[in-house]
């Protein structure tokens, strides 16, 4: 909305042709074909010795841009030289948060449409009251679209010097806008981690998981610290975001500080808000870096070796062990067969594992190409996937327990146990081993996978295949070396007992996954999942008892069992979608120390008719600004104290899920999204004060006081 209004304002300016300037006399405004510049000040008059802000606003025609302090791959930062009386101290330009401008493979950092560059100035003490302070500014910039044009303008302004006790005036309203566009200090702790070909910037804060920012980008202050054009793969963890930054031509060494601006964009469906945060983080020198030479050549092979080892170790994990045991069991049952056939089983199992890993890699490559940022175990972020795997584990358990058995033709869960020559069974056991291995992989393989995800597709694929090869290797060796086979025990009754015993790790895995689901989607999801489990049990039993009945009855029971399974999956889908969306709201209510009550128009009207002061906060779980404001301002003790001491009722409107009442209310204030902060001072006719979208504890407490005073005055 803000953005829209501003664009409208811009187009009106251009339609009116703005103002034409006399070429001879320098004024506070000047224009080139592409840029209209204006010199502004934070005051209308100055006192001797004042600290003021001067600024140059650039209005840039569409498709053209000027540059940030680090222009990126090409371009030049705008320069402003101020001419001021002796004794004035001119500070550095305060650069607003830039944006990325890509031209093919070249990426620039700069500004489009409009930007105001502010500079703090300390005026001399010896200014004569009654005189005028002359301010000159020479602004040089490079403005580019496809072509680039260096330009220079002279701007002048004269401000009256007034006595220290007289009013200096509000200055240009553009100053306030420009200040709002400056990056703010990062409210989150930052961490830099050395990587073979760059650094990882970690932003530690647990709100990102809920808010799922639509874009995150780091802009380095200095040229070449980070490759300007490289992608910055992002991962969101429970405790923060990490950005993988590729080194540029002037890479950071340990002990040096990386400075820049981190932008985080969040969208609420209709518009996107981007906020900038200053970054200042030292690259720890105690982290041992790879040898200087041939870093990238070393990194991929070592990741491949790591992946291979990781794959072997995976076999010992509870996720995979039952499957491997299952396979080993099948091998024992093949012991009498020719060595060639046994080897073939080994290779088919390996092929199953490798195919699944290749597929997984292909999915990751596809997702990466599609721009979404993924991490290993990504599929486990979806409650539906988790419940699906829980169902699968449970069904495998039932199969091992002997509740039902299936033929080799059906996608081979356990089919290798059912049929002796099940070649397809061996292949699909490999697939199954991969599916169940993924949750156990994360702690072991974090480093190698994390590395692979940032690599080109070929490297990613080789790391994944290596991991798969590791997983398949023990079984492959077992099938290969006859002496290993000979030392295996002979089949017998114990096999059946073992098979039945192995059902329990499967039930265990299923139980564990349902516990995972609790974390993801709340208590209702567990009810959904358990109902699904019961239905699956019933379907499997039905399937088994009718297996040997007449053809008609068999078909009826198969259809019924299939319908039941479909109902389970559909029901889980509906149930989980529903419960995960309400989860965020529930969690917040539970964890927040409540000094607020939920917003409703009725409650607000009731409080106001009693003339009580009310503070209203419209927020949403996915709104980072809202969460930051709550943390740095609203939850601060001085704000809590002010709320308490002034007996202000704090109402919180949660817009995480669409809420027509709140949407209507926001619209009344000309807003299409959150945050919106309102303060209704005491008195039933009082008008609400609208607080800024970026809060500090001071802004809030001052807003309370200021609004109270205004309200009192108007009553008198």
């Amino acid at each position, binding site marked *: 909305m803000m953005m829209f209004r501003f664009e409208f304002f811009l187009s009106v300016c251009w339609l009116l042709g703005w103002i034409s300037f006399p070429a001879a006399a320098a004024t506070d405004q000047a224009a080139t074909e592409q840029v209209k510049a204006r010199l502004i000040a934070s005051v209308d008059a100055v006192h001797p010795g004042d600290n003021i802000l001067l600024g140059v606003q650039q209005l840039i025609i569409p498709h053209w841009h000027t540059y940030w302090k680090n222009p990126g791959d090409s371009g030049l930062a705008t320069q402003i030289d101020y001419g001021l009386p002796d004794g004035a101290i001119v500070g550095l330009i305060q650069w607003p948060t830039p944006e990325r401008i890509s031209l093919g493979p070249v990426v620039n950092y700069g500004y489009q449409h409009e930007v105001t560059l502010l500079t703090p100035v300390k005026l001399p003490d010896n200014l004569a009251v009654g005189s005028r302070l002359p301010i000159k500014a020479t602004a040089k910039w490079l403005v580019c679209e496809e072509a680039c044009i260096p330009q220079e303008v002279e701007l002048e302004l004269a401000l009256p010097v007034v006595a220290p006790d007289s009013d200096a005036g509000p200055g240009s309203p553009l100053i306030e806008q420009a200040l709002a566009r400056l990056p703010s200090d990062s409210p989150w702790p930052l961490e830099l981690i050395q990587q073979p070909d760059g650094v990882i910037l970690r932003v530690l804060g647990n709100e990102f998981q809920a808010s799922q920012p639509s874009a995150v980008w780091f802009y380095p202050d200095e040229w070449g610290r980070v490759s300007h054009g490289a992608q910055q793969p992002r991962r969101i963890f429970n405790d923060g975001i990490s950005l993988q930054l590729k080194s540029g*031509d002037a890479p950071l060494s340990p002990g040096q500080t990386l400075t820049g601006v981190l932008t985080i964009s969040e969208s609420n469906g209709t518009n996107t808000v981007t906020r900038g945060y200053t970054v200042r983080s030292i690259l720890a020198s105690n982290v041992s870096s790879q040898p200087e030479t041939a870093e990238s*050549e070393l990194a*991929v092979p070592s990741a491949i070796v790591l992946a291979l080892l990781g794959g072997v170790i995976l076999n010992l994990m509870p996720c995979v062990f039952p499957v491997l045991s299952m396979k080993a069991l099948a091998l024992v049952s093949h012991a009498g067969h020719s060595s060639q056939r046994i080897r073939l089983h080994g290779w088919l199992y390996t092929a199953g594992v490798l195919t699944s890993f290749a597929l997984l890699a292909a999915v990751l490559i596809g997702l990466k190409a599609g721009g979404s940022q993924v991490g290993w175990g990504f599929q486990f972020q979806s409650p539906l996937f988790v419940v699906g795997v829980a169902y699968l584990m449970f069904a495998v358990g039932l199969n091992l327990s002997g509740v039902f058995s299936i033929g080799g033709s059906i996608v081979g869960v356990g089919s290798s146990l059912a049929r002796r020559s099940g070649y397809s069974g061996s292949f699909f056991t490999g697939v199954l081993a991969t599916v169940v291995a993924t949750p156990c992989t994360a702690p072991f393989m974090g480093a190698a996978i994390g590395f692979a995800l940032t690599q080109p597709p070929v490297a990613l694929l080789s790391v994944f295949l290596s991991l798969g090869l590791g997983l398949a290797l023990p079984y492959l060796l077992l099938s290969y070396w006859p002496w290993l086979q000979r030392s295996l025990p002979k089949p017998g009754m114990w096999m059946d007992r073992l098979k039945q015993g192995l059902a329990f790790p499967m039930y265990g895995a299923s139980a564990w996954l349902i516990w995972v689901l609790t974390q993801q989607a709340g208590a209702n999801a567990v009810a959904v999942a358990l109902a699904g489990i019961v239905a699956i049990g019933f379907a499997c039993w039905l399937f088994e008892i009718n297996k040997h009945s007449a053809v008609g009855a068999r078909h009826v029971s198969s259809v019924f069992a299939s319908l039941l399974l479909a109902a389970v999956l559909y029901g889980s889908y509906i149930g989980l979608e529903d419960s995960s969306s309400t989860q965020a709201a529930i969690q917040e209510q539970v964890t927040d120390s409540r000094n607020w009550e939920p917003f409703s128009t009725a409650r607000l009207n009731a409080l106001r008719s009693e003339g009580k002061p009310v503070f209203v906060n419209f927020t949403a779980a996915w709104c980072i600004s809202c969460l930051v404001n709550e943390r740095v301002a609203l939850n601060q003790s001085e704000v809590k104290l002010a709320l308490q001491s002034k007996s202000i009722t704090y109402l919180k409107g949660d817009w995480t899920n669409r809420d027509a009442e709140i949407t209507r209310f926001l619209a009344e204030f000309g807003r299409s999204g959150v945050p919106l902060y309102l303060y209704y001072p005491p008195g039933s006719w009082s008008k609400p004060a609208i607080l800024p979208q970026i809060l500090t504890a001071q802004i809030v407490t001052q807003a309370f006081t200021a609004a109270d005073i205004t309200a009192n005055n108007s009553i008198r």
Partner: protein
Amino acid sequence: MFAKFYLRRLWAGLLTMLFSLAAYAEPVVNQPAPLFSGAAADGTTLNLADLRGKTVILEWTNHECPFVKKHYESGNIPNLQKQAAQQGVVWLQVISSAPGKQGFVDAETAKKLNAERDAHPANTVFDPSGSIGKLYAATNTPQLFIIDPQGVLLYKGGIDSIPSADQADIAKAENYISSALKALAAGKSINQSSTRPYGCTVKYAG
């Protein structure tokens, strides 16, 4: 038999993957410079590999870019080209401007422009598809690369130390290319081998 065959294939596959990874890297100083061939202003096809044994300077250019104009109109680049020629260094202009974009010229125009500017590069290479530019990750005009007689990249970066479009700054700036040429003539190594290029964006297609 069957298994051995597949095992061998598997390892061969992995090795091939590793090998193809090496082709991913961007040009790095002290590493072999990427090889290319392209149509040249004299009507021949210029092949970088044929220039083994000679020091080669690649200059990305676009005659309409104000930063390029600064260094041609002031005589800075023509002087460097003369200095290079005297030292036996092959100076190649590379034009990566796509057809229809600023700086795109045909061979005749390129020769005419150089004559007008009293510029004497050894040759001009046309790269309308931008493939040579992307091979060298060239972003700016002017941007320069120096390759030694063994084909190793010695320098990549800007022309001098003051990023501006103002001719008056040339005298005040440290000229990286003239320093490099002097160092090479004296048989010394180049002091600053990777610097920040400045200028206009290379006008690639798309």
